[in-house]
């Protein structure tokens, strides 16, 4: 199952866990399943039904460009970090 690294400032919602395994074949499924297990997490990562524009989703170390639609391998490692734009970081 994909491993989700929990952002430091979100670990209050995951009983202090810094990394959890969550089922899902797409980012959308993983986030929905994360929300089911740890309510409140989706609101931190998403703006409505898309990834919050200030967040970059890393799948196995590579930033995805298709957000919620990105496919996730069974052993993928996911990180949610500040998005880096054209030399800009949005806050």
């Amino acid at each position, binding site marked *: 199952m994909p491993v989700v*690294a929990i*952002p*430091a*400032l*979100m*670990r209050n919602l995951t009983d202090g866990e*810094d990394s959890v395994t969550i089922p899902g074949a797409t980012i959308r499924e993983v986030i929905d399943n994360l929300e089911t297990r740890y309510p409140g997490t989706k*609101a*931190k990562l998403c*703006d409505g039904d898309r990834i919050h*524009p*200030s967040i970059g989703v*890393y799948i*196995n*170390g*590579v*930033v*995805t*460009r298709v957000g919620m639609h990105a496919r996730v391998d069974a052993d993928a*490692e996911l*990180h949610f*970090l*500040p*998005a*880096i*734009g*054209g*030399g*800009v*970081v*949005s*806050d």
Partner: protein
Amino acid sequence: MSEKKEYKVIGTRPIRHDGVDKVTGRAIYGADFQITGLLHGRVLRSPHAHARIVSIDTSRAEAHPGVKGVVTAQDLPEAEDKIADLGEGAVSLKYLCDNILASDKALYKGHAIAAVAATDPHIAEEACELIDVEYEVLPPVLEVRAAMEPDAPIIHENIRTSSLGETGDKPSNVASHIQFKKGDIEKGFDEADIVIEREFVTGTVHQGYIEPHNATALYNPDGQLTVWCSTQGAFTVREQLAEILQYPISKIKVVPLEIGGGFGGKINVYIKPVAALLAKKTGKPVKVLMNRADVFEGTGPTPASYITVKMGATKDGKITAAQTSMAFEAGAYPGSPVGAGAMCIFAPYNTENVLIDGYDVVVNKPKTAPYRAPGATNAAFGSETVIDELAEELNIDPLEIRLMNGAKEGDHRADGPVFPRIGFIETVEAAKSHPHYTAPNGKKHHGRGVASGFWFNIGLESSVTINVNPDGTVNLVEGSTDIGGTRASIAMQAAEVLGIPAESVNPTVVDTNSIGYTAVTGGSRTTYATGYAAYEAAQDVVRQMIERAAKLWDVDEANVQFTDGEFSSINGKEEQISFRDLSARLGETGGPVVGRATMNPAGAGGAFATHVVDVAVDEETGKVEILRYTATQDAGKAIHPSYVEGQIQGGVVQGIGWALNEEYIYNDEGEMTNASFLDYRMPTCLDLPMIDAVIVEVPNPGHPYGVRGVGEVPIVPPPAAIANAIYDAVGIRMTELPMSPDRLLKAMGKI
């Protein structure tokens, strides 16, 4: 991707396509643009760093002969509580608009208040002095630590500290707090035999491009707005104009003219919306130019910062824990690059236990803008100085400690993600084996220092079309502003695919009506991502040309191959035709061939650099002279090595300026006292030796030729490398930038 492939075009050094225009003075930059009936605009700026605007009376200016129109924030659409989506993140529309023309408060000296259009630039300037503005002056907040004090004057009443969605309960100048945590920081320090903790301060510095901002705007009676300007990204200008003016994107055309440097500072718009407002008000084309003081006082510098770094290591040099707290000045509105700095600071080192806190803090200075690897230089000044001290205390060679701890493919970055194939170790090895590192350097007050640096690089959107000409040349159309030779580096990638010389590709950068969306020239992305799009568009041309050859020979497409610029028939007929000859036969085989590609590639790969510098410190004056400089950098694959070297050399020299001289000097009222090129002292060629740029090539798996962006990371190591060299020379650890003569004399106890 094939390693060790022989290339015909890539890796060569052709004359750049726009070169003749640029050495003959014919290239048209933003300020050079002329159009019939042109009016000239001028912006009135706040003389106060923090003031409430009580009233603005423009009547005397409007009555001045030659004045055709005056605008203030009243002419901007209502922005309260709206969110602007600029594609790269949501920002408050009010902040965006208020930075164009202040509505209620002036938040820094130089903040735009009003603007005039007149028949002549001198008349516009005179008229600005006739605008009567009544201010209620407020105490300014000028430094990040002061701004974080609980009793600091509040700049924005509505800002509450945000931490990943949680917001504080009272107004604060701290707009946001971010945190990265890995492993167990306490355990890491417990395991260390030595722990070093230092604090660092860096000054406000400017990108320092030689060309001031400029814009010419025209509204046609049908509502079409055209803006001619120099910018790092015509499409981001279009997006910002659409949001700020609340105007449909379909009615805005942005024409990018040649640009005289940007370094991140020509992404945000300043006078472009002002030119548009003046054009609308007057019904005439209006050109607005900044002067140099406007550029310093009214456009994004890069943040001053206060950074603490604590690192622990075992006796044998293994780094066991790394902790930092980084507070960055955002300027007047939130949005410093503290996030990027926080993600870069420990990235070169594979460290199990990490704790990183970052704070984005508003102060009464211009809203900061990106500057070449934004945030990473501030960060590396701290971490790379502390690592040098660890190495010294442990009696380990400073490059050796980097090799021992350096990140490799498969290691996890301090902020989490796993590294793909990267070339950090290779840059350290290249520095170590360079003759510079072992050259004698024993003179009194001479010293040698090293430092490394990391920058992410980015991908983002690029579009390219390629039109085949009947003589076997192609016209390549792209949307990436060419700031440093990217027409050449993009064209060369298409030429390599098509098997034609670089000179047979004619690249043109076009306006927003003429090419698909293309993100800014920034993030070291252009040769990588637009080059990738050129590669794919050229592949599209090849596919179509194979169809044409098949038609010509009446064979199946599967039986046509393309190698080394020749199409040939396999499995049967013996046919062969060159790219050039087939180009002449497109009419008879189905008409023109246009290749196209759009890209949003994810695998930009990371960029690493390791620098070695020798300095001489003058004990009498405190002046630091750069005696020798060697910069090694992983470029993945250098498409045009001369321009890769140029990026490295230019970045190094900006870093030298940041290290030794450059800073905004403020008085207590918050006025910048050195807003000229005389007093804001950028390096001249007399201050420098040749810069030895050593290109290391560890191919990036995320690009067909292995390209990594090269533009940004070279600015990251210099301040730390020079601080370490100064220590080697005189035994003093400098922890404040710039390390100017006065600071050095003070540190040496001479004054």
